[in-house]
């Protein structure tokens, strides 16, 4: 296929930028020493890891010794939630608060804790995909161990009022974790100002390598360990350090912070163009998630009477990479729990498309996507028994 590929699935993963890969390369076959070792060649690696820690800390206004490297967003979420649950339950606190549209790394962890005897409040989000600090306040109990609310949603991109929730939790003396996997590197974050206690991130979402992430843990907080063993990460997370991965993550995040302003402007232009074009050119569509309080690169639309996998297959044939909330692509029995959480009927949840743009995308590509999408939706609807009824109605 000599067709040009348009990658519009940056919320799923992103390419490693060449400048990041370049920084990583020496650490595979040349500077390969175990950072925990004595000799000089390992010392360089130790320094490289500490440099990356500082880069990441400075990106969210944390101190370097508040950053712990992990294998990705899922591990960070699991560690934060299970770790705090374990230490707090020793004090009799066995209640957790989250939302009903978190990533599965949070939701399935919560479900696991329910089996272990914790009680979990799943706050409903409104039809725009937002929760409020008031909802959190109303759910708090004396025995609440942790509030875990995602910074920005991975499907519909809505950004939660994190600073307000952080303020509330700090006032009430309750731990506050946020899954910021989609937000870090995309929008400004300040863990101090926003009073965040724990924050998860994942390198491959901001043009860093896959398989590496980090957990920010505010000084003085000590969740129980998830991975026991060697003394790495100041004894809190065992395992020989993934030096090239860590170096890549640090550099990628530094790059993301440096270019955030111009990239945001670029993404907003693309996003607003796409939303406007789809709503103008294609009948019976619905934008999912809040219209403005969302990540700059995120578009999520449902097309009545269309099924998502069919749309994706046609997009793929046209060289366009996107994703869908259809059950066919979720690997589960149901369509996206996020789209159901904002009140979409099953049919519309099955018929959603997520386009997530990155720095490498152009307005030209966005135009091409919209043109293709118009034809594709028409073809899928031509085949759909639901579109008959739709027309008849």
């Amino acid at each position, binding site marked *: 296929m000599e067709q040009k590929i348009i990658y519009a699935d940056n919320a799923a993963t992103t390419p490693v930028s060449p400048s990041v890969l370049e920084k990583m390369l020496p650490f595979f076959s040349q500077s390969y020493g175990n950072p925990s070792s004595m000799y000089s060649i390992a010392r360089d690696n130790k320094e490289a890891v500490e440099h990356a820690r500082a880069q990441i800390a400075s990106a969210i206004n944390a101190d370097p010794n508040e950053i712990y490297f992990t294998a990705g967003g899922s591990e960070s979420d699991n560690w934060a939630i299970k770790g705090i649950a374990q230490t707090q339950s020793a004090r009799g606190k066995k209640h957790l608060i989250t939302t009903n549209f978190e990533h599965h790394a949070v939701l399935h962890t919560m479900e696991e804790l329910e089996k272990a005897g914790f009680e979990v409040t799943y706050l409903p989000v409104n039809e725009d995909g937002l929760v409020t600090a008031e909802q959190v306040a109303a759910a708090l109990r004396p025995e609440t161990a942790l509030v875990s609310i995602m910074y920005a949603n991975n499907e519909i991109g809505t950004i939660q009022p994190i600073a307000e929730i952080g303020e509330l939790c700090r006032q009430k003396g309750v731990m506050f974790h946020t899954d910021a996997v989609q937000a870090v590197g995309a929008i400004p974050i300040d863990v101090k100002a926003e009073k965040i206690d724990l924050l998860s991130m994942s390198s491959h979402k901001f043009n860093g390598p896959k398989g590496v992430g980090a957990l920010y843990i505010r000084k003085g907080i000590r969740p129980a360990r998830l991975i026991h063993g060697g003394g790495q990460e100041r004894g809190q997370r065992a395992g020989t350090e993934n030096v090239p991965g860590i170096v890549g993550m640090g550099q990628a995040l530094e790059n993301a912070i440096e270019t955030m302003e111009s990239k945001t402007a670029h993404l907003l232009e693309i996003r607003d163009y796409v939303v406007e074009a789809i709503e103008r050119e294609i009948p019976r569509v619905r934008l999912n998630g809040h219209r403005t309080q969302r990540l700059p690169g995120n578009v999520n639309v449902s097309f009545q*009477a*269309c*099924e998502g*996998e*069919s749309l994706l*297959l046609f997009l793929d*044939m046209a060289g366009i990479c996107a994703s869908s909330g*259809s*059950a*066919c*692509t*979720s*690997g*589960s*029995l*149901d*369509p996206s729990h996020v789209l159901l959480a904002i009140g979409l*009927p*099953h*049919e519309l949840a*099955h018929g959603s498309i997520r386009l997530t743009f990155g720095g490498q995308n152009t307005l030209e590509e966005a135009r091409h996507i919209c043109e293709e999408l118009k034809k594709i939706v028409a073809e899928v609807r*031509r*085949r*759909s*028994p*639901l579109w*008959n009824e739709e027309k008849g109605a």
Partner: protein
Amino acid sequence: MSTPYSPTVMDHFSNPRNVGELPDANAVGEVGNPKCGDIMKMYLKIEDDVISDVRFQTFGCGAAIATSSIATEMIRGKKIDEALQLTNRAVVEALEGLPPIKLHCSVLAEQAVKSAISDYYRRQGIDPVPIVGALDDECDDHCSCGA
């Protein structure tokens, strides 16, 4: 989930045969439901016990489109009793395989044909169950493409 569809599946997905409504159909069946993300509607024109024309409309994934399409090809011009012999296994074979988690789409195609033929008998005041068998309207067991 990657989509390791066979070329035949992709051919039927890209160029589905017999798509659309059939205004003079005398047998119409519909299976699946929007909750599951799969709905197949099958329109037959039956003359002298022979399926002289057929159309389908499907809301569903690539496998659902392809199984509907190939099923229409496999029953067109066939006698009713031949069409009733269509098994989901035959559909899968004709498509040169389906990913395991998509196998239920072939079941849906078989059921859509049977549902349409049942409708044909019902319109004539004949109870279809002794001929066609009972149809599972619900897709609880294999709801959606997910595994």
